[in-house]
């Protein structure tokens, strides 16, 4: 669109026609304050903070609804505008409790900031303030009406952003209030978007409220360890404890988006059943031992089995870092001399990599003109990807197609919906051929309903459309994709996970951050070593249990569902635990392996080796260090790796594999543990 020139406060500003004045001013470095205006959400013009003088207009105009026009002359710094702002703040404070000293938002409150900058220093309001008692809408969401300034951001983010519309407005005038969808309580995604978008302390979270002050925490931006979407979550840490997660700085691929897991389900790290000391099995059950003794026990047995040419099995994790995964597979292959290494495969990344087709980024989901979702309930299982697609539909009118077994939230925004029986997904996709071929471009997302041969057939279908098509293979957890690319897979001749569990003749089975006994029985009696946070079903059967640090307690990189590599930042420590990488190193050293050949077990050193040796991972370290995301380049499709069937764990918004069981917040919400929850 053509640019127009206008004048704001005497400064000539150029902006595309139809840009809102408030945005044009912002880009020119001129702040026009607002509460209700929120980039990307429907316009309200309700708070009246953005009133400015526009030449030839008879009265002050709201900059949040006014498109710029050629020759427009705007003044934001006049006494009249300053007086208008001051009067709005005076009005909004009349019924505000001013309980800043005990308000969670104190110190990071937009109302405080506005009054500080634009408001009056005194109050002329002598009447009695309205009071309404605070309400608990869910274990996550609390509402304090007196603090609410009725900017309706929460209502809009819930309806427009999340597609849930669990919040509305009831009553009238100064008695207006935000209301939850079930009268006295909420039934929703419990994502907390409403809480984080609230400019004041009207919406507060069950995990954070009255716990601490914002300035008393360290704010550490890291990657959520739950699903595979790779959302940046900024953890608020005080005294080695997570008090909250949010992403108000909109860094990371997810901007400000987070679901309940990214915001509130970090509490597993502080669960009382967290393993804090190594355990070695004795006749009377587990005996707590020192780290030195535990490492010695494991290394001694491993060395002995190695020496006699015994048989190892290694099961890696969907949650550990790329560095850990890489180091583990290298240690297994070179140190233990085994090719029996695998992990719980939740999506057929391997087949997609082998198809050598373009892979979509999370940003592509927001920009692509068309999106096809095959065989998955995206809003439940990949809520960030669903959010991107919803935003794309809202902002760019993207056409969305769903091929699914039952109703999904994306149906509401879908141009076409195809219902299929299990196994009918490919046939369902085929029925969309004519529509899809008319699209200028397409992103196809598919879950475990498409695997093996079907992946090849899907990509052939995509290629036959004659338009640019990109793909996303949906996987379950924070580093499921990385586990594949780092080679936590058997090469030709090695055993897959189900084969290892069923083999019966393994001498040692080393399970790192996984719980295979949940799905598989273990044949035989191998020497079982488990590294985990909790005494899982698998850990309970172990000979040695090594307490591992969680993703929030370590550095390293993870690769999300779209192949975007991002860096974990260590946020705090849980004394007694060690990172998996350190445990690997200690075992290797104790075994007397060739440490020079294995290399140092620091994340940066391992990543440097990954960059050298793993195709597609020669990524700009500076970008990752700065908190950016970089999509890994074209992989070689791991030509040696053995294909095996995949199965998603089928987590919902309120479950997260084994970790989810230890999140009190996930289990406290009414929707937990969750059939697939439908809003």
């Amino acid at each position: 669109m053509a640019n127009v020139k206008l004048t704001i406060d005497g400064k000539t500003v150029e902006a595309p026609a139809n840009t809102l004045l408030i945005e044009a001013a912002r880009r020119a470095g001129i702040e026009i304050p607002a509460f209700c205006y929120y980039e990307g959400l429907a316009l309200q013009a309700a708070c009246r903070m953005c009133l400015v003088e526009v030449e030839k207009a008879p009265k002050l105009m709201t900059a949040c609804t006014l498109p710029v026009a050629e020759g427009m002359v705007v003044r934001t710094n006049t006494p009249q505008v300053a007086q208008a702002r001051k009067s709005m703040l005076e009005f909004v404070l009349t019924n505000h409790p001013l309980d800043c000293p005990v308000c969670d938002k104190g110190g990071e409150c937009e109302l405080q900031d506005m009054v500080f900058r634009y408001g009056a220093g005194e109050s002329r309001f002598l009447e009695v303030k309205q009071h309404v008692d605070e309400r608990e809408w869910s274990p996550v969401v609390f509402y304090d009406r007196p603090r609410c300034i009725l900017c309706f951001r929460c209502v809009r983010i819930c309806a427009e952003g999340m597609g849930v519309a669990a919040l509305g407005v009831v009553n009238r005038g100064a008695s207006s209030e935000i209301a939850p969808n079930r009268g006295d309580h909420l039934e929703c995604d419990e994502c907390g978007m409403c809480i984080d978008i609230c400019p004041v302390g009207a919406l507060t979270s069950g995990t954070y409220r009255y716990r601490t002050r914002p300035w008393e925490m360290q704010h550490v931006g890291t990657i959520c360890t739950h699903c595979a979407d790779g959302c940046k979550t900024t953890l608020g840490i005080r005294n080695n404890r997570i008090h909250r997660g949010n992403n108000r700085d909109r860094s990371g691929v997810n901007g400000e988006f987070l679901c309940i897991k990214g915001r509130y389900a970090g509490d597993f790290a502080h669960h009382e059943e967290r393993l804090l000391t190594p355990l070695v099995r004795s006749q009377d059950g587990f005996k707590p031992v020192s780290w030195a003794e535990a490492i010695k026990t494991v290394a001694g047995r491993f060395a002995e089995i190695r020496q006699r040419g015994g048989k190892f099995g290694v099961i890696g994790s969907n949650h550990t870092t790329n560095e850990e995964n890489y180091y583990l597979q290298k240690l297994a292959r070179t140190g233990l001399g085994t090719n029996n290494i695998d992990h719980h495969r939740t999506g057929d990344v391997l087949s997609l990599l082998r198809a050598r087709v373009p892979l979509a980024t999370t940003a592509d989901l927001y920009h692509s003109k068309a999106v096809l979702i095959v065989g998955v309930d995206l809003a439940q299982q990949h809520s960030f990807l669903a959010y991107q697609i919803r935003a794309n539909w809202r902002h760019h009118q993207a056409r969305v197609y769903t091929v699914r077994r039952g109703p999904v939230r994306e149906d509401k925004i879908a141009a076409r919906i195809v219902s299929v029986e299990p196994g009918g997904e490919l046939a369902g996709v085929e029925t969309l051929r004519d529509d899809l071929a008319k699209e200028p471009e397409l992103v196809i997302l598919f879950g475990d309903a498409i695997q093996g041969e079907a992946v090849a057939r899907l990509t052939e279908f995509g290629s036959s459309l004659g338009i640019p098509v990109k793909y996303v293979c949906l996987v379950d957890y924070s580093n499921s994709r990385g586990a594949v690319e780092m080679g936590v897979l058997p090469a030709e001749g090695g055993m897959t996970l189900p084969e290892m569990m069923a083999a019966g003749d393994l001498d040692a089975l080393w399970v790192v951050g996984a719980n295979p006994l949940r799905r598989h029985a273990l044949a035989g009696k191998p020497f079982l070593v488990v590294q985990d946070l909790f005494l899982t079903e698998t850990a309970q059967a172990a000979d040695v249990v090594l307490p591992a640090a969680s993703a929030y307690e370590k550095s390293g990189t993870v690769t999300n569902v779209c192949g975007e590599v991002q860096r974990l930042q260590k946020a705090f420590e849980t004394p007694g635990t060690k990172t998996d990488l350190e445990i690997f190193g200690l075992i290797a050293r104790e075994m007397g392996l060739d440490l020079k050949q294995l290399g140092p077990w620091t994340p940066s050193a391992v990543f440097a080796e990954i960059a050298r040796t793993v195709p597609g991972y020669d990524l700009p370290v500076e970008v990752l260090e700065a908190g950016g995301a970089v999509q890994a380049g074209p992989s070689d499709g791991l030509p040696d790796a053995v294909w095996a069937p995949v199965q998603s764990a089928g987590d919902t918004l309120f479950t997260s594999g084994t970790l989810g069981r230890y999140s009190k917040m996930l289990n406290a919400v009414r929707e937990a543990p969750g059939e697939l929850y439908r809003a």
Partner: protein
Amino acid sequence: MLYNEPSPLEVKVLTRRFGLPNSQSLDTYLASDGYKAFRKAVEMGPEKVLEELKVSNLRGRGGAGFPTGMKWGFVPRNSPKPKYVVVNADEGEPGTCKDRLLMENDPHQLLEGMLIAGFVVDAHVGYIYVRGEYRYVIEILDRAIAEAYERGYLGKNILGTGFDFDVYTHTGAGSYECGEESALLESLEGKRGVPRIRPPFPAVAGLYQCPTVLNNVESFSAVPAIIRDGGAAFAALGTPKNGGTRLFCISGHVNKPGVYELPMGFNLLRMINEVAGGVRGGKKLKAVIPGGSSCPVLKAEECDISMDFDSLAKAKSMLGSGGVIVMDEDTCMVKAALRIMRFYQHESCGWCIPCREGTLWLRKLLARVHEGGGTQSDVPLIGELAKNMLGRTFCPLGDAAAMPTIAFVEKFREEFEAHLNGAPCPFESKPVSA
């Protein structure tokens, strides 16, 4: 049904059938030129009908006084979207009770006005949005609509003209705000009754975002007479730029309160003294609110004025919706200001900060002052708060609350000052307890 004796000074155009036996019935309507205007409009064609409307100088009777012909002309007749006709019958402005009478006594006149509007803009569906309190009026309207369908004045191929038109009534739920046209449309669509961001205006994006003709009951009811007798004849009844007659609703301290149809530009003092029988009990006139409660009050000495949009605007008040509220010398102006603010506070929709918080603050402040709890600084504060709302709210309701308040404080400042520092209200027979 009529509530007051007609006055010989009235010029009966819209109310000409009031008082006829069975004035609600189609037969009575037909016997008195009913549906002739529609036939004539079809013969004239849309362009000429619009021209007549413009010539008539009919200005919106809801209160804003926007020229009706111009408003209809904004509707893109050739838009591929469906077009709608919507009648604002959410008569809620305190002091106003004319639309009710027009619907009660002559529903077919309204329907014919809608038909003509539909014909002009190529709309085929009309809605009458009736305030919730007018339940019995809806029954009258529904009977008239049913009768019109039965006899071919609504429905398909009306009177063999090939024009189709359907009409539905819809009830509001008791919110004053829904009389604001964009809030009315939201409510009609089944949403919360809060106003929309404008532009776009309803003529371009109204009901269901489609082009919409939206007018007051009285405006639509004036259309048949204009088409039947010609725009020039209608215009000639009033003053330049203020065509026709208007239904004035005279209430308050007069001997003969009621609704009277008088030419635009009728003198306000004559209206009070000759039409409404003078101030009750021989008292002195103190003040008049000339056009419904949102209009700034006129002092007695300002009342020698022509009742038309432009003269009142010049006097810094408004003709508004035609609700003339007369107050005698015993009226407490602080209490009047409080009563009005109580209404606007109760009706504020809560969407924007200045109206939501300003009306509540002012209501509390005025109540405190009236009870004697005010201090010297409260009097200027009242005016200042109202000015802080004026022109800054999302919709005109904030202005409607601010304008009369500013006028009361400016024109009757001494009465506010007489209430301060524990003084009892000079107009209350008993001292008010603090």
